[in-house]
């Protein structure tokens, strides 16, 4: 009964490839997020969706495209992968009715070679 799940947990791929990371939450939350933790361990917001609509896009390259088929799912597709995309990507979710706490998935470690 995992609250926020991500697949895959590890992803190793070559430069130039296209890959997707999937995220699902069973908390009944309306808002979902993608964060990136880089090699210096900084956690930074990338995108946020509320009820399938994009509400935050933090100057992320166009090669990154989030997709929310329904409010329980938020997937991240990355085109033409670059070495600098290597990082841990975390999905998170939250309520929108005055609650700020976000609940995170276990992360996907992406390694681009």
């Amino acid at each position, binding site marked *: 009964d995992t609250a*926020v799940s991500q697949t895959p947990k590890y992803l190793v791929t070559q430069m130039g490839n296209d890959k997707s990371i999937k995220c699902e939450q069973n908390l009944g939350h*309306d*808002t979902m*997020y993608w964060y990136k933790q880089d090699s210096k*361990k*900084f*956690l*930074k*917001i990338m995108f*946020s969706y*509320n009820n399938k609509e994009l509400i*935050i896009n*933090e100057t992320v390259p166009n090669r990154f495209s989030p997709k929310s088929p329904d409010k329980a799912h938020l997937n991240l597709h990355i085109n033409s992968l670059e070495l600098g995309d290597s990082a841990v990507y*975390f999905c*998170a979710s*939250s*309520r*929108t*009715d*005055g*609650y*700020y*706490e*976000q*609940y*995170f*998935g*276990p*992360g996907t470690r992406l390694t681009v070679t």
Partner: protein
Amino acid sequence: DQQVKQNSPSLSVQEGRISILNCDYTNSMFDYFLWYKKYPAEGPTFLISISSIKDKNEDGRFTVFLNKSAKHLSLHIVPSQPGDSAVYFCALSTGTASKLTFGTGTRLQVTL
């Protein structure tokens, strides 16, 4: 331009003693403050939070203090336990369901 800083990258505390983790911020628009704990290979786990209208919030062994004038946030853990060994992040928000701006993290090690 790091808006949220945790100036101690690491902290070592003996079991049973108090752990104090600090967080400083520059943007006065932040109005909600959270602490997360992170174990290796896991996602951050929410610990405790405080809104800007309060200066203290307590939950069991964890207490968060907010000093708005100094733009300073701290987390006290007492007594510290070995299971508290993890990386602690402060995270700040400017609105409901808004993005969280994370601090740089402090690695806490609780020794026997």
